[in-house]
């Protein structure tokens, strides 16, 4: 039996060495081409984390991405603006990108777009952070947030391929494609449809389980900006449907901002946008023309503080 065990471990060791070498080779190749992407959401994240130098930065999810017209806001504020919003990524992503950026330079102001149910405890909400795994080794500042994905995340990252899991077709396509138009629009991505369904009164939850970690990350994000002397502005952009109850996350955001003297504008029920199908691309996102109107209003609100 002893000989068999020794033989088994020898073979296992050999297999692990082969796998580690191939993992290293493929991982490094993927890394090389990942950072050379010219289009797609990853190229936007690469730009935001590694190159961005604008004065005003906008953080948030797809709603930030489609609602804040960076160039229009820049014209009003007379400062350069970049929209880092990324589809499907919320406050945790924003916090990680912000931490990475602040190691390079200090912007003048930061706009954080918050969504309804931002702090809700949801399975899978940490999985979206996978879009930042390629930055893990080079940006120690974001390692803390990325390790929230799972307690074994740092061990999984021993693999060089793992950060690029599921990305190889995207990397290949985005290396061939032409430069992303989002680079010209400073991160803003317009939507052009109009809503096809009638407005609904949504029986949104009066209460839900709050993820205290998400709240802590948001608080730390605001505190970090204040510490560095960066002006912080928090917004909740408009929704199409009518929400029956006040959202607990938005109430908490209001409270956090009030305590810290940070301006918070809640446009989730704003009369100018609400329930108008011509203004929305879908029930969560404004279309281009209304995003421009909304951006001007936001810029107007911020202007007096800068």
């Amino acid at each position, binding site marked *: *039996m002893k000989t*068999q*065990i020794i*033989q*088994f471990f020898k*073979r296992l060791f*050999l*297999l692990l060495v*082969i*796998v580690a070498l*191939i*993992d290293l080779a*493929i991982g490094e190749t993927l890394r090389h081409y990942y950072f050379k992407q010219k289009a797609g959401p990853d190229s936007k994240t690469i730009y935001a984390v590694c190159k961005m130098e604008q004065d005003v930065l906008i953080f948030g999810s797809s709603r930030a991405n489609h609602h804040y017209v960076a160039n229009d806001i820049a014209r009003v504020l007379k400062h350069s603006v970049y929209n880092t919003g990324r589809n499907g990524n919320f406050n945790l992503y924003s916090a990680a990108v912000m931490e990475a950026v602040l190691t390079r330079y200090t912007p003048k102001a930061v706009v954080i777009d918050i969504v309804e149910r931002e702090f809700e405890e949801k399975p*899978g909400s940490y*999985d979206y952070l996978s879009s930042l795994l390629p930055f893990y080794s080079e940006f120690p500042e974001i390692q803390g947030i990325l390790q929230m994905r*799972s*307690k*074994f995340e740092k*061990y*999984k990252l021993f*693999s060089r*391929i*793992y950060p*690029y*899991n*599921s*990305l*190889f*077709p*995207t990397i290949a396509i985005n290396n061939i494609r032409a430069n992303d138009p989002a680079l010209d629009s400073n991160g803003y991505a317009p939507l052009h449809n109009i809503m096809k369904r009638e407005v609904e009164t949504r029986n949104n939850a009066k209460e839900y389980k709050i993820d205290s970690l998400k709240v802590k990350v948001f608080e730390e994000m605001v505190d970090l900006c204040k510490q560095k002397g960066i002006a912080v502005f928090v917004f909740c952009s408009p929704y199409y449907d009518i929400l029956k109850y006040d959202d607990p996350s938005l109430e908490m955001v209001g409270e956090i901002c009030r305590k810290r003297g940070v301006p918070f504008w809640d446009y989730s029920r704003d009369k100018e946008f609400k329930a108008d199908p011509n203004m929305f691309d879908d029930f969560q996102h404004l279309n281009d023309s209304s995003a421009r109107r909304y951006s001007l209003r936001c810029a107007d609100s911020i202007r007096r503080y800068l």
Partner: protein
Amino acid sequence: MLFNSFDFLIFFVVVTSLYFALPHKYRWFLLLVASCYFYMAFVPVYILILGFTIVIDYFAGIWLENATGRRRKMLLVLSLVANIGVLAVFKYYNFINENITTVLYGAGFENPIPYLSILLPIGLSFHTFQAMSYTIEVYRGHQTAERNFGIYALYVMFYPQLVAGPIERPQNLLHQFYEKHEFDIKRVASGLKLMMWGFFKKLIIADRLSIYVDTVYNHPENCEGITFIVATIFFAFQIYCDFSGYSDIAIGSARVMGFKLMENFRRPYFSQSISEFWKRWHISLSTWFSDYLYRSMGGNRVSVPRWYFNLFFVFLVSGLWHGANWTYVIWGALNGFYLIFAIVRKKMFAGLQTDFIRLPEWLTKTTNILVTFVLICFSWIFFRARNVDEAFYIIRKIAAFEGPLFITNPNFFFSILGIIMLMGVEFQQEFFKDKISLLNHPRAIVRYATYTLIIILILMMGVFDGSQFIYFQF
């Protein structure tokens, strides 16, 4: 604890190492403690429910063996009622109550029976059926009652198959806990290879397909016919890879320690008829129903109408076993109907001369495989839909056969690639059995290249969000 988690990898390495390091007489105890830990990783308190039925069945087994006549039957009934009772409370109470409410509401009354706020303990249906197989086999005299309480508890709690099978029989598993399993490099390697293939099916195919399937089936109002067709085909492969992947990991991890668990899947989507499908799909459950329910009702040694009823009833119960929802009942009924229809059709054509239509064998086989696959996919609509109304809505949309195909890149690409890889391997296993698979190739370089390729593919294409296995909910 989920098989597709890092926790399990650590657990598996520790338990297996300790298993071989310990003297034989302590191994059962190690496995029992490990199995309890494995189960308690989900919801710790639910182990008490398993404990309750374990105590009842343990004593029932011993008393049954010594009892005769009416008392013997009474003890069996007592054990079965306890097992089914626990399952009924946790799984069916609210479902029954909901239906009572609907009926009473229709008649203008209110239902005074309160609902229970309880969660179904993971794998309770599997545990219950395995426990029931023990008392039934002791009752039938095919199995001697187990005197060692710890070994009996281990039989119903053995971690590889505790939460999603294969549903074992005492004759196959119990005696294995007394046998000494040496470290055999060939067996260990074979178990690890099976586990690796199971992880491939779960992480690369099932969890990838679930992204598309969940998006479509959880928001049917946003999708059209062609999208539903694709989502249903994807679901067919998702549920197969999810469940058979689990079985492969279970059988493989048991094999590493020297235990031989029964086969649970045998390339079901190459079946040429529905009856063949059920001989290849979830074999441990199909044979359970066949051994303990179908044959007890007389099987096919009864009048023809009664035979049809037996078949239909067994599938109806099988549907209900899967879940407390009318969708599962319809799914079971539909499969029962398929089988009866196939028998009737065969009888009708039995006397007819069909020699004038002689198709090539490959074409007949392919047609039969495709027709069986389509029928099975149709039944999966009920299995996956959230409720009966949505299932019929989806069928209506499919019948309309219109609308754009919803594609999520690169997810769609990975989904198709995963299915092609799976079907390629299974095609070789099904039709070229004499050809040696790459995983068992005599040349070490080919074997190692295959292991490496599978691991690298898992790293590159696997979904690592720790999704639950679908069958856990049953």
